[in-house]
Structure formats: C-alpha cells, structure tokens
C-alpha cells in the first residue's frame, strides 16, 4: 500500500514528539489504543487557565505510519485552539487532510479519541465534569 505524501512527511518529520509533565494541573493526558491492537497513542495538551487556549501539545505513538501521522497532525491542529474548539476536531478531518485509505481510518479515530481523552483528563483535574463522547466504533 502506498502512503500519501502528507503521511510520509509527518512520519519522516513528526511534529511535537515528546512528553509534557502530566502531574501539572494545566496538562491533560490521553492514552488510547492497546499494544495488542498494534497501536497506542499518547497525546498531551497544556492549557492556559486564563484563556482556555491550548498553548502546547505533544504526542508519542506506537503504531503504523498513518497512526504516527494522525497524532502528529492532531498536535499541530491543537496548538492555538481553545479547548472548546479542540472538542470539535473530527476524525474525518484527519482522514481528509492525510488522504488515509479506508483500512487506516481507525488511526484517525484513535487520534480523535486521544484528543478527547486528553481534554477530559484536563477537565477532571480542574474539577470540571467530563464530557460524554459518542463511541465511533470503527475498529
């Protein structure tokens, strides 16, 4: 299977690989997937309390090129968005941007799940109610 140029670019030069201090109250961490499924994504956001703006985002991913690209792209999109705007990121936006084939859609779903898990972790830490998300259930 051939990969799109954008997937190859994110794979070769991933953006925002790294780790934020998960003990900080302003950092939300989402860890999704499972080793036995062949993909695990950890996505972290750092939020400015005053503005609700995501000031930093980092990821680490165990998975195929499309999973790495999906999480790399997600971190790029998250930076500069408010938490409310970030909630609206849909996996199909990722599919479109990266030109993912049908067998790789689950990678984009995982990225969306990771964003939402990170947001909920941040909300929980700050005494806010966790948001209820619909299960995409693609994989």
């Amino acid at each position, binding site marked *: 299977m051939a990969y799109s140029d954008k997937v190859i670019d994110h*794979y070769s030069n991933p953006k925002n690989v790294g780790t934020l201090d998960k003990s900080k109250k302003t950092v939300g961490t989402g860890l999704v997937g499972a080793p036995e499924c062949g993909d695990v994504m950890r996505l972290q956001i750092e939020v400015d309390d005053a503005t609700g703006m995501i000031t930093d985002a980092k990821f680490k991913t*165990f998975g*195929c*090129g499309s999973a790495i690209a999906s999480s790399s792209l997600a971190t790029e999109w998250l930076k500069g968005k408010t938490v409310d705007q970030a909630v609206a990121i849909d996996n199909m936006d990722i599919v479109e941007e990266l030109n993912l084939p049908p*067998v790789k859609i689950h990678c984009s779903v995982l990225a969306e799940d990771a964003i939402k898990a990170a947001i909920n972790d941040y909300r929980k830490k700050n005494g806010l109610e966790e948001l209820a998300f619909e299960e995409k259930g693609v*994989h």
Partner: protein
Amino acid sequence: MLKLPVYLDNNATTPMDPRVLETMLPYFTEHFGNAASRNHPFGWEAESAVDYAREQVAQLIGADPKEIIFTSGATEGDNLGIKGIFEMYAAKGNHIITATTEHKAVLDTCKHLEKLGADVTYLQVKADGLIDLAELEAAIKPTTILISIMYANNEIGVIQPVKEISTIAKRHGVLFFTDATQAVGKITVNVIEDGIDLLTFTAHKMYGPKGIGALYVRRKNPRVKVTAQMDGGGHERSMRSGTLNVPGIVGFGKACELCRLEMEEDTKRISALRDKLETALLKVEEAYVNGNREHRLPHVANISFKHVEGEGLLMGFNKNIALSSGSACTSASLEPSYVLKALGLGDDLAHSSLRFGLGRFTTEEQIDYTVEQITNTVLKLREMSPLWEMYKEGIDLNSIEWAHH
C-alpha cells in the same frame, strides 16, 4: 557496490534466475506444442521437454519421475494432497492431524474438509515453533488417515522433525503429507530418507517461474493415490487434469537442477549473511529472534523489536528494502501473525516483528545497509513510542488497563 532496492522477502517469492528464463523461452514460441499431442513433432518435443524436467524435479527430492504430479503451485498441491487423500481413503477413516502454524492453504483446506465431515486435530506448537512428537503420536486414532505437517515454516523458518514424524506415521499406518514449499531447493529434502508419502512445493520460491509446482505422490511402500480435484483429460496419471504448462515445467526443471547443483555453496554463503544480519540486529536493545534458531532454514530470520510496531518500522526504509512484518495493521482484522501468536508470543511482540528472507542474489553490502537502516529506524521510532518510554520508566505494561477496541 550497493544495489538498491534490497530484496529480503524471498519467502514470499524469489526472482527468477536468468538461466531459468533462458531455458524457458523457446517453449513459448518455436516449441509451443501440447505435451498431450501424440501424433506430431510439436507434441513430441513438448512431451520430451516435460519428461526431462520431470526427471530434474524428481532428482532434487530423491523421487522417481513417475511420482511427480505437476500442479499450478503449492496451494493447489496442498488442496490436492489433503482433499485427495480425504476422498480416496474415506473408507479407512476421516481423521487428519495438522498443526496451528501450517500455511493457510493447509489450514483452510482442513477447515473446508471439516464441513464435509472430517475430524481434524490442530496440534499446538512449542514456544520454539516445533511440534511435540509425543503429542502427535497421542493424537493418532484408529480413524486417522493423514498427518499433514509442513517441512519448514514460511514465517520463522523452523524445520520440523520430518524423519521422526514419518516414523510415527508409519508405525501407525498413517500417511504423511508435508508442505515443503520453503524447504525444497534450500536444504536437502529426500522423500525416501525422510519417509514422506506426499509432498508439495513450487517453482517460484526457488528461482523458477510462478504458476507451476508439483505434488509428489509415493508409488510404492505404500502405493498412494489421491482423488483428482479437477476433472478433465486425465493428465498426470489421472490425478490432475489440465494441459501441461510446458514452459513453466521446463523452467521448474531447470530451477530444480540449479538448486541441486548449487545448494551447498549457496547455503554456505547465504547462512553466513543471515548470521551476520542477525548478530548485528540483536545488538539493538530488546530485540528477539522468534522460533528455534538451530532447526531453521539457512536463509530465514524473524526478529521482534520490542515497543516498535512492524508496519511503522517498515515505513522507515521500505522504499529501499523489501521486507515483511508479522504485524497486520493493513488487514481488516488487525490481528498480528497467527504463527507468532502460536509460539505464545504476546500480541505486542508479534506486532513488532520483521521477517527476513535472504536469497541467491543477496549481497553483503545489502546486508550491511539493511542493518544500518533498521537499527536507525528502530531507535528513531522508540523515541516516539509511549510504550518504550513506559518500559524505560520501569512501568509494567501489563499492569495498564488498555482500552481494547
């Protein structure tokens, strides 16, 4: 001189040896006859070419030419051998013994036969990929008609104790079929010494053309017969009808001859390269060889790099190195290799595996390049892997409650 891209997927298929192609060419054009045409020189020429090739093929496995049935390849041989025995020996029984690490062509054939009333035992393998001989013997019942165990595995290269299996089979009056697709041409296979009753193999795994293979069917001690699975003109002693693929057969014959003459030298060179590759890659932290390393094909290595996903790993160099992975992120199931899972490997290690199949045309420069590329990519991806980070922090990955999807 380094020649790119590097091809290390010789278990999938091998390039054709130019000497094989050269032998085949006249049989597409001037000698195009049908080997079954008995009344003119075109037919005679084709027939004599097939006869000669049949001898070359038989000689490689120590068989009599009359015991060679040409097929379209190993999958057909698996189907014809197993289904053909099931039908032919129906009066004797309906029990077949095979193993969980067999090729799908064997496993799916057995599953098909189960729907038709077959009773199939799927033996588990040990952690090194070998079957347990005591378990095999214990599985034999009065209704057992066939033991089907592969000669060597396509993913891990592990060679089964074929002689011991055939001894057990003989002791109980059970026929022994072996899928020897990966073994023939690479190591010495002799149907007499090994006590094999039926054996399938194919040309394209040994530098011959695709679309041609053979099923060996023993003619004496005991005389074995299979029921044809394709009806027609009664070719191949009525066991496999269909006009013979003369150019393919000629090429197959030549490929067998080359393997027989050059096996010793090829094996020496290729296994040295394989060992060099393996030794170098095992210097990478948390890298493991899958399967028994002693009873193994000389050109195969299967290595897992912990906490790095196989397909992601391949992407780091697959423009320049052709390899295959036990991970199956592209398939709908997302299930990693069933062979590696049968060894008791965790799914994470199965997802992290690469299969190396070296061949006649692999060079030392290519191996050096491959080691460098893979090592660099593993290190790069581990920097990106949350599992590697957790492992380094001493977190037990099994203690985490993963969101299974």
